[in-house]
């Protein structure tokens, strides 16, 4: 299979942005699902992994914005830090997936994924500490919010995202990372 074309990358990005609106609604039945299961992060990380950093960045920035416009979630007050966080997830996962080549698809995916998840959380924490909640944001609040509360979401992302990428490769919807291996 050939490289993904610009048009296909654009449409995949559009689909991932739309999923940023749809998936949180699917989790809506579960109380507090947004902060625990992090449904909006899944399409953003996936878009970065498949299409590269510019598309991941756009998906991460536009996904929360459109979701806020269409469904009111995240509320306007939480929107700016969430846009920054998701944009960094998309950008970092895309950048790492372009840079990391270990000749093992699973290793590439996990390195990119974990690197993006850490980078996004660090940048989001810094943004909250320095801009959005200057002076009143602590290390404990950061660790609690981004790692402890979100632990189920982190586990879901680590289990689910590589499976989705492999399912898409198997279905021939995206090219294999290392054809013939």
């Amino acid at each position, binding site marked *: 299979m050939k490289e993904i*074309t*610009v*048009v*296909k990358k*654009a*449409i*995949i*990005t*559009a*689909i991932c*942005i*739309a*999923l940023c*609106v*749809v*998936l949180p*609604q*699917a*989790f*809506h*039945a*579960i*109380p507090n699902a947004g902060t625990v*299961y992090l449904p909006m992060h*899944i399409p953003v990380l*996936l878009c970065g992994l498949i299409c590269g950093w510019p598309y991941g960045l*756009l998906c991460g920035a*536009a996904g929360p914005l*459109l979701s*806020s*416009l*269409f*469904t*009111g*979630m995240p*509320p*306007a*007050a939480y929107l700016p830090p969430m846009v920054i966080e998701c944009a960094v997830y998309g950008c970092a996962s895309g950048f790492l997936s372009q840079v990391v080549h270990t000749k093992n698809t699973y290793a590439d995916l996990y390195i990119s994924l974990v690197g993006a998840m850490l980078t996004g959380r660090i940048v989001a924490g810094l943004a909250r500490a320095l801009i959005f909640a200057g002076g009143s944001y602590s290390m404990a609040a950061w660790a609690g919010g981004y790692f402890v509360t979100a632990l*189920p979401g982190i586990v*879901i992302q680590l289990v*689910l995202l590589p*499976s*989705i990428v492999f*399912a*898409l490769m198997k*279905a021939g*919807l*995206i090219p294999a990372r290392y054809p013939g291996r």
Partner: protein
Amino acid sequence: MRQLPVGLYQPADSVIHRLSGSAKLLCMLLLLIGVVNTTTLPGYGIWVLLTALLIRLARISPGTALGSAVRLKWFFGVILFMNLCFYQPEDPWVRWWIFSPSYAGLIQGIQVVARVFLLLAMSNVLMVSTAPLVMTDAMERLLSPLRLIGVPAGLIAMILSVAIQFIPTLFEETDNIRKAQTARGARFDSPRLWDKAKAVLPLLVPVFLAAFKRADELSMAMEARGYRGDTQSRKKKYPPFQTADWLALLLCAAVAAAFVMIR
């Protein structure tokens, strides 16, 4: 999940519908600046009246315009309660356990709720009164200065437009897959959190596969018709603003400036 999101375009013949997309987007930004800079209760009262006027002018039902805000009633309730009870513990009406309700907390809570409510209502009026293609053109026009630094404004506008048009389709797709999974024994309505979470997980892989299949088909169709993506900077002529557009912009700028100045 069982209902489509509010904020999807509804055609009508109204003053707001007739404005150009770019003018509407700019007006929205100006009004947001005004709302964010409002600090008094009478100020929010004026914004409520202005929003009601916008809804009336756009000839959309209040239910459509306020749908997403009404859905957040519990969120608003919690925000109001938290502000009321914890905002200013130094000067409370009464003190009971950890709760210290105060007048300042009540005012702060009302302001936060009013701000979010107004922003949601205004963005709904914009989305409901603007066709997706018009919105795409408007976004492309407003993003066009970014072409100077090599950002493909046309491609970004196309991506956002396709995303907006895919939202209802993906909602339906997800609902169908959800029904299929329910028929196979998934327990979406279980009162137990773990059951709900376990039920949602098998939903995700089929949703992604179906969505990417659609992306594959659409991108092939677009490429077959010669679309290659607007990666090169190219000049596009946009229609000039009409008198009504300038008038709307002036009015919104005046309102926003007034609220910024009396802040």
